[in-house]
């Protein structure tokens, strides 16, 4: 991902030779995704995701704004993925023109926002004049590859965890109820897209890279920073648990055939299924922890379910 870090000749040779012999530096198999650790902060919509040494923090916030004139029934949803030098000195502050930064934000945008993962119509308050503007701020804290995958998980988990304050509408007037007055309401999530990134390496010389007849490329899932620096091609697929392909992104690099793409999607499905279940389970545990007194305070009768 980063341009300024350079691997030494011997180190890159070592990594590539190891890949040829079916080894990765961190001891994972080629199709193994790093363990995803998700932690929730104190407030709703405050999520940090760790994958190996990669750390991403996501913060969801909302405020009342005016909808776009041509879309009066829709709320606003913005994802901001600005990389700061905290992730590594190769990233410059406020420089969003870097190729990788642009690619990263475009893929997240495509996977989450344009796939309609968030129900923006549910954010409408008064058509044409007031709506919720939801904002996802992704903070990249530590960079060891897999920024796209980690930030997609962070944004989706954040959106599912977030709750906006409840409102009452009286004609044009609206009352926003503070969180301690009325139980806040969760956002409408229509599906959970998760990204999986494949990196490809060419075990032969560069001529093979151009002709690409033998299809003997090495494909690994969830590359670390060093592997990202050396790869010859990259493919990011986004899937959801309904077996829908949300987006496929392959910007140049090593050529690959359609069967390979199918194979990658199947591999990715197993991974996203596991991650989706993990996220849902964690959200359940978290809401149980937050509402531990609910069972005691409720006046509901015990029922057989």
């Amino acid at each position, binding site marked *: 991902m980063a341009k300024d870090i350079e691997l030494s000749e011997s180190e890159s040779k070592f990594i590539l030779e190891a890949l040829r012999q079916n080894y990765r530096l961190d001891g994972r198999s080629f199709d193994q995704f790093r363990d995803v650790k998700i932690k929730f*902060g104190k407030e709703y919509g405050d999520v940090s995701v760790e994958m190996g040494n990669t750390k991403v923090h996501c*913060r969801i916030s909302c405020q009342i704004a005016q909808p776009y004139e041509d879309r009066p029934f829709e709320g606003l949803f913005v994802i901001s993925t600005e990389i700061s*030098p*905290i992730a590594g000195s190769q990233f410059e502050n406020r420089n969003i023109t870097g190729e990788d930064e642009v690619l990263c934000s475009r893929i997240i945008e495509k996977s989450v926002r344009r796939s309609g993962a968030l129900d923006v119509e549910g954010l409408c308050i008064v058509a044409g004049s007031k709506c919720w503007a939801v*904002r996802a*701020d992704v*903070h990249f804290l530590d960079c*060891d590859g897999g920024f796209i995958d980690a930030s997609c998980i962070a944004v989706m988990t954040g959106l599912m965890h977030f709750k906006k304050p409840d409102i009452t509408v009286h004609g044009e007037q609206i009352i926003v109820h503070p969180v301690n007055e009325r139980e806040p309401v969760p956002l409408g999530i229509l599906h959970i897209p998760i990204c999986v990134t494949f990196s490809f390496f060419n075990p032969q010389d560069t001529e093979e890279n151009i002709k690409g007849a033998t299809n003997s490329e090495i494909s690994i899932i969830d590359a670390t920073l060093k592997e990202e620096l050396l790869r010859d091609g990259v493919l990011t697929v986004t899937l959801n648990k309904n077996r829908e392909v949300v987006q496929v992104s392959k910007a140049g690099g090593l050529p690959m055939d359609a069967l390979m793409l199918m194979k990658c999607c199947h591999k990715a499905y197993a991974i996203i299924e596991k991650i989706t279940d993990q996220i849902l389970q964690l959200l359940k545990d978290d809401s149980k922890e937050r509402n531990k007194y609910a069972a005691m305070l409720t006046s509901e009768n015990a029922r057989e379910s």
Partner: protein
Amino acid sequence: MHFQAEVGVLGHVDGSSQFVSQDTKIVCSVTGPIEPKARQELPTQLALEVIIRPAKGVATTREKLLEDKLRAVLTPIINRYCYPRQLCQITCQILESGEDESEFSQRELSCCINAAFLALVDAGIAMNSMCASIPIAIMKDSNEIIDNPSAEQLKTSPSVHTLALEFVDGGKVVKNVLLLDSNGDFNEDQLFNILELGEQKCQGLVKNLRKIIQDQISPRLVV
């Protein structure tokens, strides 16, 4: 001031720290000395690039002002003439602000100062002295001065302050006031009281900061 802090939390920078006090949570990274861009370079001393990033939304003039205050605190305590024509990048990411961002920045600023100090030490940048910072509020009716006020206490208080002091001699002697940033209604007596109480509280804080650094490096020392 009660807090939890950790140093060396990030892998791809020279020094880093995480500072948590009540609901305020900051991650700070320091990279340096590195080669600066031509416009940043200073012929005789270390140039500082200070960046503060908010938890929500994009950085505005509010963050620029915070950056400026943080720079004013850090500049005198770093031994800048050790690194001529070099650059040090100090980046603070606010993860949780712990106060109403539209009105206050006291908690965030003092946590940023403490976090940046720890990260600078972790990065091994030469320092002249130590610093410690606390937020202070004067309560409405009792006129009581409290350090490290909560978000609610900030809201009800008529005046809020941020104090940063410079320490030398192993954190025993106060050398200078690095920052005293006050907002609201207060009088001269109250300000002197703030300095007096602030000195005590900062002294306690600087002791704890030293302890954190000590715990971090003592296992690495070869006796």
